[in-house]
Structures are given as C-alpha cells and as structure tokens.
C-alpha cells in the first residue's frame, strides 16, 4: 500500500525502518521541520497519522448528522441559513482531512468504506442525540469549542498536510463556536421555558464534551509517541483543562450552571478543578453502545446509497463526453 510511494532510492519492504533513518527523521522533528508526504517516515508514524486523520475526517462527516437533523426545524430563517452553512462546512472539513490522508497513500473511498462498514471510529460525541433546538446552540459552543482547542494544537502538527488542513479548519471553526454561543445566550436570556431548555441541553452535553479529549493521560497509550513525533503538542488532560478554563466563565456570563458539584476555582493553579469523568460511559460509547451509534451509521449508509445515482450520472456524463471528444 505504501511502499510504492516512497521516494527513490526505494527501500525494500521491511528494511525501511533502519535506525539511521529513524534517527535522521527524529532529528528533523526536533529541529521543528515539517514532514511532507514524499519524505521518508517510519511506518509507525504513517500508521498513527492515518489512524488519527481518518478518525478526525469521519468525525466531521458524522458530525453533520445530529445538526442536519434540525435544519428543517430551525426557529428562524437566520438560524436556518447559519445551520446550513455550518453543516456544509463540516462536509468541507471532512474532505480537507481525507485529502490529507490521501497524501499518505490511503484512498478516500477506502476510508469511507471503513466508516460505512463500522470498522472505523469517529468522535463518540456524535453518538449522543440532539433532543431539542437548544442542543444545536450548545453543540456549537461546547463541541466546536472543544474541537478548536484540539485543532489549534494540531495546526502545529509535524505532518505538513495535516497541519495545513487544520489551519484552514480553524479559520472557519470560530464561526461555528460563536453562532452556537449566540444561540445559547439568546435562549438563556429568553423566557423561563427557554432558559430551562438550554440549561437542560448544557446538562446533557457537558460531560460528553469533556470526554471528547480522550482518555486520561495515564490511560492514553498513544500520547507519548504522538508528542515525541510532534503530531500532538499537548496531552489529553492539558487540552481538557484548557477547554474547562475557557468555558466556565462563558457559562457564568449567561447565567447557566455546569452539572458538576465538584467544579471550583483553584487559586493556586489559577485553574478550574472539575469532578471525575465517568470513563465507563466513555468506553461503552466508543465500543458502539452509545445512544445513537447504530442510528448514525444507518443514516450515513442511507445517504451514501441515496447519492449513488448522482455518482453514476456524473460518471455517465464523463463517459459520454469522452466518446464525443474522441470522435
């Protein structure tokens, strides 16, 4: 799969990871150089990138589903336009990252197939249901907010195509977060019923949003290696803390509480301490038993199948054009 795309002199399969090359590769990383697709890289680095990038791309694509669910029921034309634009952005973000994985020799179709057959993973946050309109605002605020914290770090990743996709995404993602927070603030300042609705959404989304940053550092098998190769710059727990510190004051500003009795400001560290995450729930959702895992995959498959005629029509048109131009 990947040997064919290595630059000359082509290493024989299996002997590629010799110590000298690894040392030179790690020296480049240490100098802060960017690794480009045709550069030599350890097979393990390539595998880790394909794993991370494809999960990330899948998350963008599946992420369209909980929000798309509310497009037809948006409460005003303004909110509907905003939501349409956001969902379209998510499709674009998925494509940016798939395009990045293709530079590593893995085709998009192959990855989409892994998603549709349930072999691939995506962010567990999208396996929770969007029960009310307030969920849409809270997703923009929490989920996109958490994604920005993560992606701002990834914009400095050592692999050039991934970093460049992240720069592009971060530029667009700020709109996602701000529109969400605006919607939340509007509801929070609205009628008592509206305030209660958005508080309920906050209560349901807070913990799953903290889980988005992945397992705690002590249980994160990939972290050390990813940081050593500068794919990541910070650990899961550091990023999670950054998100909490950003978000708590934002919740207070609009008179919303966060569902954590242990949440308190620590004067010494100048950070918000928070309670214990329910890791059992995290692993349940990751292993396919979240509230919406099956529904999400079924919706993705249906969209793929329903779009088949468009793909066939495009191919038929291209074939016809080739016949005409050959004549």
């Amino acid at each position, binding site marked *: *799969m990947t040997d*064919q*795309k290595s*630059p*000359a*002199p082509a290493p024989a399969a299996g002997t590629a990871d010799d110590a000298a090359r690894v040392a030179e590769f790690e020296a480049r990383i240490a100098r802060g150089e960017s690794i*480009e*697709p*045709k*550069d*030599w890289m350890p097979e393990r680095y390539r595998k880790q990138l394909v794993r991370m990038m494809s999960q990330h791309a899948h998350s963008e694509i599946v992420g369209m589903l909980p929000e798309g669910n509310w497009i037809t029921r948006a409460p005003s034309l303004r909110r509907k336009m905003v939501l349409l*634009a956001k969902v*379209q*952005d998510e499709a*674009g973000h998925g*494509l*940016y990252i798939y*395009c*990045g994985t*293709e*530079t*590593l*020799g*893995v*085709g*998009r*179709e*192959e990855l989409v*197939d892994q998603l549709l057959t349930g072999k691939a993973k995506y962010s567990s946050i999208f396996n929770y249901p969007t029960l009310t309109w307030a969920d849409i605002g809270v997703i923009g605020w929490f989920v996109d907010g958490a994604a920005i914290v993560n992606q701002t770090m990834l914009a400095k990743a050592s692999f050039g*195509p991934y970093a*460049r*996709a992240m720069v*592009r995404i971060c530029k*667009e993602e700020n709109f996602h977060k701000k529109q969400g927070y605006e919607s939340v603030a509007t509801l929070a300042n609205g009628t008592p019923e509206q305030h209660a609705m958005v508080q309920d959404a906050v209560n349901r989304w807070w913990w799953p949003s903290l889980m988005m940053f992945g397992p705690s550092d002590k249980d994160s098998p990939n972290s050390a290696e990813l940081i050593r190769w500068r794919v990541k710059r910070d650990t899961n727990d550091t990023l999670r803390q950054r998100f909490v510190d950003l978000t708590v004051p934002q919740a207070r500003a609009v008179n919303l509480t966060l569902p954590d009795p242990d949440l308190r400001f620590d004067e010494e560290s100048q950070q918000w301490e928070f309670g214990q995450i329910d890791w059992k729930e995290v692993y349940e959702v990751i292993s396919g038993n979240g509230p919406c895992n099956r529904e999400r995959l079924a919706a993705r498959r249906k969209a793929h199948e329903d779009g088949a005629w468009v793909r066939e029509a*495009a*191919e038929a*048109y*291209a074939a016809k*054009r080739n016949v005409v131009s050959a004549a």
Partner: protein
Amino acid sequence: MTKDTVSATGGATTAAETQWDLWEVFTQEGEGAPHEHAGSVHATTPEHAMQNARDVYARRGKIVSLWVVPSGAIIASAPSDSGPFFDPGNDKAYRHPQFYKTPRGVRGL
C-alpha cells in the same frame, strides 16, 4: 517516480479502481496574489473538478480565481535529490547584493 500511482503531492490515485480522478486545487486569494496549492478533489471531468474545488476550497473569503490540475500531470522534485538539485542556487554568493562592497558614504545603491 511512480507517476501513475502517486500524485506530485503524494495522493494515491489507484487506491480503489472506482475512485474518481484526483485533481490538485490552487486558489488565488485576492487580485495580484499568487495561486497557492489548497488541496485536492476527486472529479469525473474538468468542469466537475472546478465545481467541487469551489465548494470545498472557496466557500468563503476572497478567492478570485481557481486552478484545477490533474494530479498526475504535476512533476515534482524528489526529497532525496533536493540537495544536489538545488545546489547551483546555494553556492553563488555573487547573486546576492551583500556580496559587493560599496565605497563609504555612497547612497542609493
């Protein structure tokens, strides 16, 4: 270089036989700016590639012009010969103005 399997930017075009051709996309952000590589799209025809490139890489902002190029048409230098290949540009200090001495007090050079 294995032109038929790998694009200049590294993309695989034969990972799946049913996959549409890969096109590299270049965008110009504002008049007078250079066209810069933005990413790639899959498409069946040049027009299709142009429309996909617009939808993926020009949803907002100041893009005033797009180029789409079949990935296989790009010939790229290889990292392994970047040293010797670019050497002629590095060993000629006399191509830079700093190489030349100017008499003290002379301005506007």
